[in-house]
């Protein structure tokens, strides 16, 4: 008999009952988005890894308080982002890496998708460079929405702002980004 995969709600409920394997599945399902969210905030792989790991531990400890039926990912990302912000603050002047496109790396570990390959390397770098010129709050909101594909709601929770703020900040950031690209073009 083939059993269907457990839903996220079922995994969360099993984890609440003490099922470590269920929580392991939840970690596997979310570790990439958790790590990348943390990385976009910390811009440091070690800090991002530490933030994501700590966030999963805190999420596990807080499972008894998690509201049944609520979406788990935004709740997790809020913890991740908070941990990441703490590390970003404590890191002070530590060097933060700028985002780079995979094609510009010496090794070709990350193969481009057909969709991504539509952008010429030069255009990608120009866009990334323009993104880097934005204020952090604007860069983060665009990163969450477009680079991580988080929903408005998830972005709001992760950044600790209202959904309306995400909308207005996104609009403002896109405007600045557009201006920056025009000035460079």
């Amino acid at each position, binding site marked *: 008999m083939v059993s269907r995969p457990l839903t996220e709600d079922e995994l969360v409920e099993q984890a609440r009952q003490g099922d470590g394997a269920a929580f392991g599945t939840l970690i596997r399902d979310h570790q*990439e988005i958790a790590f990348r969210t943390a990385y976009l905030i910390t811009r440091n792989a070690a800090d991002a890894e530490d933030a994501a790991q700590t966030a*999963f531990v805190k999420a596990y400890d807080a499972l008894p308080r998690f509201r049944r039926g609520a979406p788990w990912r935004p709740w997790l990302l809020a913890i991740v982002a908070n941990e990441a912000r703490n590390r970003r603050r404590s890191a002070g002047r530590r060097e933060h890496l700028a985002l780079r496109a995979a094609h510009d790396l010496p090794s070709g570990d990350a193969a481009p998708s057909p969709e991504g390959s539509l952008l010429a390397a030069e255009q990608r770098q120009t866009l990334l460079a323009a993104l880097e010129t934005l204020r952090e709050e604007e860069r983060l909101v665009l990163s969450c929405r477009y680079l991580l594909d988080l929903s408005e709601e998830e972005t709001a929770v992760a950044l600790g702002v209202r959904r309306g703020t995400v909308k207005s900040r996104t609009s403002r950031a896109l405007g600045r980004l557009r201006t920056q690209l025009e000035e460079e073009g």
Partner: protein
Amino acid sequence: MTELELRLTSLREEIAFPETPDLAARLERELAARRPTRPRLRPLAITLAVLVAMAAGVLVLSPGARSAFLEIFRLEGATVERVEDLPNVPTTERLQLGERVSREEAERLLGFELVDLGEPDAVFVRDERIATLVYGPIERPRLVLSQLRGSIFEGFVKKTAGAGTRVDEVTVKGERGLFVSGEQHFVMFRDEFGRIADEPTYLAGNTLLWNRGPLLLRLEGDLDRTEALELARSVR
């Protein structure tokens, strides 16, 4: 989606993120070994019945009843007053626990972090002042934990016990409490806007009232004193 948004979206697959570490492998065993030890509600202690039913109406306590107080016990936010005769209360009323809200909304409305005995089945807020955590079916809860900020509600809540009721002073984690048992009917009085009104309640269980820092907590259920105190000590 604008062209710029499309370009940003296309960039998604192109960002050179560092390789995601395998946190699952690292954490799974470690976390399973230190499963949170929050005590779960024990079904045997709470199966026998319904607890609290707060009546829909608000009665005004008769002068006769008010004058019949025999004893007064005081907590920071509550007073238990023993009376000879309890006001008549309806016997079949729906729970009047307030508005059902999320835990986060309850905490926002009340301005403090709720304590609990484990994840409740429902959270209610009444008057943006009292939060009630319900365990078990909402229509027939097995256990109810109410909480309010005692410092704000000084003299606000009173709980009246009939003559057949036993009231024991207890200590919960070093703070004063009262265990009220024996009599099934209680009335919780409140003194809002300078008048005395009461919300009749009836219950088939016992009640533990105790202070916890700035909060006044009230636990109601089919619990004996030992069980109630054990649960109260596990509140966090």
